[in-house]
Structure formats: structure tokens, C-alpha cells
């Protein structure tokens, strides 16, 4: 499965006063591994030379935000956004890349017990990368439409399934506040049943772990690192305020695409 999280967006000016002058730039790198295939009917049939075939291992990189770290204030502080993006998300990516490389080696050697042992590191760190990549797109500054209620088909679906946007928010906030430990609260689309759902996942489990036909529309990170410096132990206040910067335009686009 080829996953690409390389966004080509404008690099935002880092205008918050506390951000160091040297902004971190992430560079795309691609590692290519060449392995020699033994000649055989398969490769001959595909028109490949018997001598060589390429297997490339993609390295993932930190996607840029389309807004400044401070642009979501006062809902989410610039200090949190910087740490969350440059430290937490970056660490998931670094560890994900490491785990994938180890997996690649183990697969080449046919080392099944290592392949299986690596699954939890891939789930933790790959899940962290998947989830946070969605999260940054779920947020947008107020002046860019953050908090503006969804119109169109998603707005209608929310009213139909939950009664109102307020009711949906109330439900997600209740489930997010009640989640023990670390995790996420999601608004998702069940593509098979063609209905909206509210779900929670533990740690960095992506929404798809709750159902193979679930597509994430809005995810809210309720790990303590997502809010602690600003809201401390009062997770409910974080949940109340984050709706002011939720990007319903993005959620609507995903919904329209996935429900067609």
C-alpha cells in the first residue's frame, strides 16, 4: 500500500514571537533499495530483465501546516501547536520510518517473528503519523473559516443522524472527556452503512481499527500533550474550545468524496 503524506504547500511564516528564527524545514527523501531477482517466469513475463528489480522504501516526512503555529489562538496556544507538530508528530514519523526499515529487512530475510514483533511499533507510530496528519487538516484559523458550521450534504447528514450540530458536539465532547488515558474522539463516515458515527480510539489507533469501512472526517486528539500546557487537567474546556477552529470545509470535502 503506497501512502503519501508529502504535502506541497506554502511554507508558512512562523510569526509567533517564541518560535526560534530558524524554522525547521522537512525534506523529502527517498531511499531506494535494489535487490536482484533471480530469473524466473514471473519477471520474464512482466518484461523485466532477469537481472534486477527495484524495491523502494518510502521515508515519511512531517507535513507542513497551512497556518502559523499561533493562528489557532486562543483556542489552542501557539506553544502547544509547535510542540505538538515539531516534537510529537515528528517523533512518530521518525520511529515509524525506523520500524518500517526494520520490517523491510525482516521481510527480506523471511524473519517472521521479527515481522510480527514490529507490528505494535508500526501501529503506534504509523497510527500517530496517520492521525496527526488528519488532525492538522481538521484545524484552521477562524479567519479561514474555522468553526463555521458545515453546509451542504455533511451539514444535512449531521442534522439527520444527530439532530443538530450542537448535539453532535455535545456527544463528541462527552465521549472525549470520558476517554481514559490517551486516545482520540472521531466523527466518521461508515461507507458501508452510509451513516455518520462517533467513535473513540485508544492511544494512536486509527479510526479504521474500529471498523474497516470507517472513514475519519473529524478527529480530536485527547492525549494530554494536545492540551495540557494550556488547559491543564480540564480536558472538557479544551474540547469546548476546539470547535472554534474546526475546519468543516475539509470534513465536508472528505464526506462528499467518500459518500459518492
Amino acid at each position: 500500500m503506497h501512502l503519501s503524506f508529502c504535502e506541497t504547500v506554502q511554507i508558512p511564516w512562523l510569526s509567533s514571537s517564541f518560535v526560534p528564527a530558524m524554522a525547521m524545514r522537512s525534506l523529502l527523501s527517498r531511499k531506494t533499495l535494489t535487490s536482484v531477482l533471480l530469473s524466473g517466469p514471473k519477471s520474464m513475463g512482466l518484461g523485466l530483465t532477469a537481472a534486477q528489480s527495484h524495491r523502494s522504501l518510502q521515508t515519511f516526512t512531517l507535513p507542513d501546516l497551512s497556518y502559523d503555529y499561533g493562528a489557532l489562538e486562543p483556542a489552542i496556544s501557539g506553544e502547544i501547536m509547535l510542540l505538538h507538530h515539531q516534537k510529537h508528530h515528528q517523533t512518530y514519523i521518525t520511529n515509524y520510518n525506523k520500524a518500517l526499515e526494520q520490517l523491510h529487512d525482516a521481510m527480506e530475510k523471511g524473519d517472521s517473528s521479527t515481522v510480527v514483533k514490529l507490528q505494535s511499533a508500526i501501529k503506534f507510530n504509523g497510527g500517530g503519523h496517520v492521525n496527526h496528519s488528519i488532525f492538522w487538516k481538521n484545524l484552521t484559523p477562524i479567519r479561514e473559516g474555522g468553526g463555521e458550521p458545515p453546509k451542504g450534504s455533511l451539514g444535512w447528514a449531521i442534522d439527520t443522524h444527530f439532530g443538530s450540530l450542537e448535539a453532535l458536539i455535545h456527544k463528541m465532547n462527552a465521549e472525549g472527556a470520558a476517554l481514559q488515558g490517551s486516545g482520540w474522539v472521531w466523527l466518521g463516515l461508515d461507507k458501508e452503512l452510509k451513516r455518520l458515527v462517533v467513535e473513540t480510539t485508544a492511544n494512536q489507533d486509527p479510526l479504521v481499527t474500529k471498523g474497516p469501512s470507517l472513514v475519519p472526517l473529524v478527529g480530536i486528539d485527547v492525549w494530554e500533550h494536545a492540551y495540557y500546557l494550556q488547559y491543564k487537567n480540564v480536558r472538557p474546556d479544551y474540547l469546548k474550545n476546539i470547535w472554534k477552529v474546526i475546519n468543516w470545509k475539509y470534513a465536508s470535502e472528505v464526506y462528499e468524496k467518500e459518500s459518492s
Partner: protein
Amino acid sequence: MELLATSATTTSLHYAFLPRKGLFGTPVSAGTERRCVRKVGPVKISAKFELKPPPYPTNALEPVMSEKTFEFHWGKHHRAYVDNLNKQIAGTDLDGKSLEDVVVITYNKGDPLPPFNNAAQVWNHDFFWESMKPGGGGAPSGELLQLIERDFGSFQKFSDEFKAAAATQFGSGWAWLLFKDNKLAIVKTPNAVNPLVLEGYPLLTIDVWEHAYYLDFQNRRPDYISVFMEKLVSWDAVSKRLEQAKLLV
């Protein structure tokens, strides 16, 4: 200083030996700690769990673990576990049982009941504060050191393994040194799970929920863990617990 007493008709938070002004110098108004109880006929006096203070002032672990962290970690998180537990078990079969009993019963052999999270977290945090002391850290001595060297090879190897367990507990949780089957062992547990519900007698713990270190260390959990080992661990407490554990074997 005064000890606030529980009355039969209202529930109130127990503050043991705290100044009238409140722990952090802020005035404590009489109205804030008292709340109404459901009236269910004859008034029942039920045993309530109390928020135990750490065995040192809340600024005693500065600058390694800040007073600000204690203000929230003990004053808000730990307090909330106590309050919510009391609310959950009032008037139920669990009311009046010891904390350890509540933890084990509500763990329900791995299919936890709602009060488990609060009960276990109350116990875990009591145990955590007592695992630290001002001027702590360094290395153990005597029998504890001998056992560490026997079961891990050296104190350094034990320390590395304990720190690795704490650093690799994904999400929220705890790392523990246990005494089990007459040997020392290290385990890590998620969320509220603790050795009371696994096998083994707990000797030492470190809280690796993000709220334990975020104000002082932000994302740098490994730094927090290192500093815990170097400057905070109360080997006295660990040794005493080991003595008790051996009596039970």
C-alpha cells in the same frame, strides 16, 4: 491548622492537617468543599477515601518536580480520582471496603468495572508520591542492592531496564519494580493497571502519564525518567516495601 470533620449529612473532602488558608495560600471558602448528599431515608455514615498528601511539602522536590506540577498532579488529578471514586461507590457493596479490595474487585479479572480506573489511580498515586523523596535518587544499599545485582546483573543494568520500560510504555501508564516469585522484575502497565491485579508485590513506580511530566519536561519523557532515577527515587521506601514483601512469601 484544623482537621475538617465529615458530618453525617454532607460529604466533604477530608483535608488532613492543612492550614485554613488552603494548601497553596489561596483562601478556601467554606462553601466550596461541601456538597449535598442524596437523601435516602435514615442517614448512613459511609467510609470515604481521603486524598492523602505526599509525605513531604509540595515544593520539596523542586526544581526536579515543580510545585506547579504538584498543584495539578496531586491537587487536581489525584483529588479528582478520590472524589469520583467516592461518588461511584457510595451506597454500593464497595462502600466501606479497603482501597486495595476495591481495586482488585473492580478489576474484575481483566474486564474492569467503572470504578476501577478511579480506585486504581488513587492507589497508584499514593504509591507514587511515597516512591519519591527530597534528595532522593542515587543507589540502594544492603539487601535490596544485593537482589538487584542478583536479578539484573548490576544496578546500572537494572536502571537501564527500568528507564527503558518507562520510556516505551506507549500512551498513558506506569513502570514498576516488583517482587514476584522471590525475584525482582520490571513491568510496565497501561493507564491505571497496577501490580495489585497482576501478580507481584510492587516496590517502586514511576508515573508516565503525560500529566506527570508535561509542565516540567513537555515531550521529553526520557529526561523526566532520568531525573527521576537520579534525584527522586526513595530507596528507603523501596527497601521497606521489600521487607514487607518478603514476609508475605
